[in-house]
């Protein structure tokens, strides 16, 4: 009797396990279908001041869409802390939304799972054509040479924010345009408890964003043509060292910045403790921290020499949000219509204005709202001198590995340990070895 019970339990367990692992992930249909043409589920990311604010912003637009097409869109605004986990769970199980926002740096990784609808020429035609979008924004939506896995929705880039009063007090008339000027200005500003530049030393993705751009300027691309990690090239090492040297050698970043990961560098800037910070669209944060718009100015991120441009004159990575469609959606036509709606000129103007980002749709950029000083700098950077992060499947591994290396180098610098080319190379070597293909 007892043996029977045990045997039965074990058999049950084994068969369930077998069932689970056999049909783990995905549904039986490989492509999308039009089984439920009247509804769509949309996971929006948090772009506004709060989740509730996002809902208030998006709901009227979704109502417009419903009026136009008769398709009801079920909206869920997912906080950033949960979004990637939920996308992972959705990819694993096949149970997810139809349309969703993704951080554009996730595009290549998600592309490699095969779960997203590829935007080939046919799909692009359905939303008005590929040339409606800025090239750099499309380039940040998937691996080069393959159809992108998503469509750019909101775009951003980095800019240099500076404190006008602190600059005037130090006798600096214009924001720095080259790194040498930045260091020089920083040195003038770093005294009496104030510092020239702020940095988020423990924020891994921020570290990547900054060092990637410096890498471009040194002619290094952290991955080689085959997509294998190459963190120890001279250019990469020089780029990382240059960034950490702002604290270690030039002493224009306060040592305390090494532990910042919750946007404390923005608070420091807003409170007049730091004179410069490199960030994406920080205007609303400054306002929330009590800084008046006339107190700060915007300039393009510095370059080694000359003016920002392409190639070695890159001065920002392409930041932003892309919109993707799950391949196994049950309303593929509706999903495409929705993407078309959200990337239409009219909607782009409305949404990007509200969110303070730049529309990746060229035609929408002409709206006068995007000519305001801060947005103008971001817009021009995006159009002329921004490059997408490496579009490799293990992009998040790259962020973790190299971002952590930079974080540890900052910790060394803050503790007073020397930061040399050898020590930088050693850490990057270690980071490279942890990259599995």
């Amino acid at each position: 009797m007892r043996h029977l019970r045990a045997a039965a339990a074990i058999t049950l367990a084994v068969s369930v396990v077998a069932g689970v692992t056999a049909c783990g992930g995905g549904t039986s249909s490989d492509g999308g279908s039009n089984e439920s043409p009247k509804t769509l589920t949309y996971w929006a990311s948090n772009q506004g001041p709060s989740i509730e604010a996002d809902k208030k912003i998006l709901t009227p637009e979704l109502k417009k869409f419903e009026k136009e097409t008769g398709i009801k869109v079920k909206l869920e605004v997912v906080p950033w802390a949960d979004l990637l986990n939920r996308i992972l769970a959705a990819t694993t199980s096949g149970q997810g939304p139809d349309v969703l926002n993704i951080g554009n740096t996730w595009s290549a990784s998600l592309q490699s799972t095969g779960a997203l609808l590829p935007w080939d020429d046919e799909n692009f035609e359905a939303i008005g054509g590929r040339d409606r979008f800025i090239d750099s924004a499309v380039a940040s939506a998937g691996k080069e040479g393959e159809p992108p896995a998503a469509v750019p929705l909101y775009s951003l880039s980095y800019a240099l924010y500076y404190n006008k009063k602190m600059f005037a007090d130090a006798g600096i008339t214009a924001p720095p345009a080259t790194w040498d000027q930045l260091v020089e200005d920083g040195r003038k500003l770093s005294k009496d408890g104030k510092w020239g530049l702020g940095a988020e030393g423990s924020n891994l993705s921020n570290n990547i964003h900054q060092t990637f751009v410096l890498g471009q300027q040194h002619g290094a691309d952290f991955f080689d043509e085959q997509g294998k990690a190459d963190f120890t090239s001279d250019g990469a090492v020089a780029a990382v060292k240059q960034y950490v040297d702002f604290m270690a050698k030039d002493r224009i970043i306060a040592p305390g910045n090494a532990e910042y990961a919750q946007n404390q560098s923005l608070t420091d800037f807003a409170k007049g403790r730091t004179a410069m910070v490199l960030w994406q669209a920080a205007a609303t944060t400054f306002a929330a921290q009590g800084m008046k718009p006339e107190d700060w100015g915007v300039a393009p991120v510095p370059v080694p020499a000359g003016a920002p441009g392409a190639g070695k004159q890159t001065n920002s990575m392409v930041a932003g949000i892309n919109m993707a469609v799950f391949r196994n959606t049950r309303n593929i036509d509706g999903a495409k219509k929705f993407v078309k709606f959200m990337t239409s000129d009219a909607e782009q103007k409305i949404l990007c204005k509200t969110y303070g980002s730049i529309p990746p749709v060229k035609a929408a950029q002409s709206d006068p709202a995007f000519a305001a000083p801060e947005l103008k700098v971001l817009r021009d950077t995006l159009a002329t001198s921004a490059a997408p992060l490496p579009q490799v499947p293990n992009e998040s591994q790259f962020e973790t590995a190299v971002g952590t290396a930079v974080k540890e180098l900052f910790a060394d610098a803050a503790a007073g340990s020397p930061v040399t080319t050898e020590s930088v190379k050693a850490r990057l070597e270690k980071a490279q070895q942890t990259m599995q293909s």
Partner: protein
Amino acid sequence: MTATVTTDPGTGKQARGTTRGSGGARRGIPRIPDRIRRGGLPYLLLLPAVLLELLIHLIPMVVGIVMSFRQLTQFFIGNWGAAPWTGLENYEIAVDFDAPIGEALLHSFFVTCVFTFFAVGLAWLFGVTAAIMLQESFRGRGFLRTLFLVPYALPVYAAVITWAFMFQRDNGLVNHVLHDQLGITDQPSFWLIGDNSIYALIVVSVWKGWPFAFLMLMAALQNIPRELYEAAAIDGAGVWQQIRRITMPSLRPVNQVLVLVLFLWTFNDFNTPYVLFGKAAPAGADLISIHIYQSSFVTWNFGTGSAMSVLLLLFLLVVTAVYLFLTSRGRKGSHA
């Protein structure tokens, strides 16, 4: 007297057959024949627990173990069945202590052991001290008992973030007291990065964890009959002797379980280091749970993450077995 408890495997919820009221005639209800009762009753009582454990704990664990033998990277996440079998390759990467991955895992493992030892030791010490001190009734005891449970009541995210605030180098309370007010250190130190990070982690973990030990021990102390203390006092035993001779031995069965689970939970604790340090913990406080999280969720390589988890499981099984063996030797109990 009969009570059939059936469980729907789909939801795991129970449905009672006949009710057992708190009142009403009882002696009139016929009893189940002894043979069936004695044979089947324990199994029946265990059934809901077993089914739920199977569904929610054991099957996912088995799936996790199976995952460790496959190359489950982002390419195969959408369809696990298609991931290629790689045998022990994931394990080889994890235990290759010369390569960075294996080396980091070993380092993280040692850090976790040290951390767990101190965190559990201090949490248990505080808990047992407080429980004993609050045993006798005095004015304010109820208030203190509730106060000591406050860290347990507060949401993990807010509590740990508050400590992160307090440990900030420039604006935090800890450095304000240590450096500005007491002048113990000449420069404000870093607590969230660098070598001091392990101390910060231990402090936060003990702060959060000791109320739980306190709660369990407080409940256990209630079951020690007062006559034992009275008899000892009449025999001239002082308070400290009473604690040593009566309280501690009586707490042994509860302590045995408590220390073990505290050890297992602290070893696997993910929330505390994640909220305190973010995705990448400093080398001095690189706990194994964060390490495994990085190897699986962040890098989307679930094969390696699972392999590391299985190694962790094996290690903890061995430790538990040794622990149970050592602590059971002194017990006179017949149950194990």
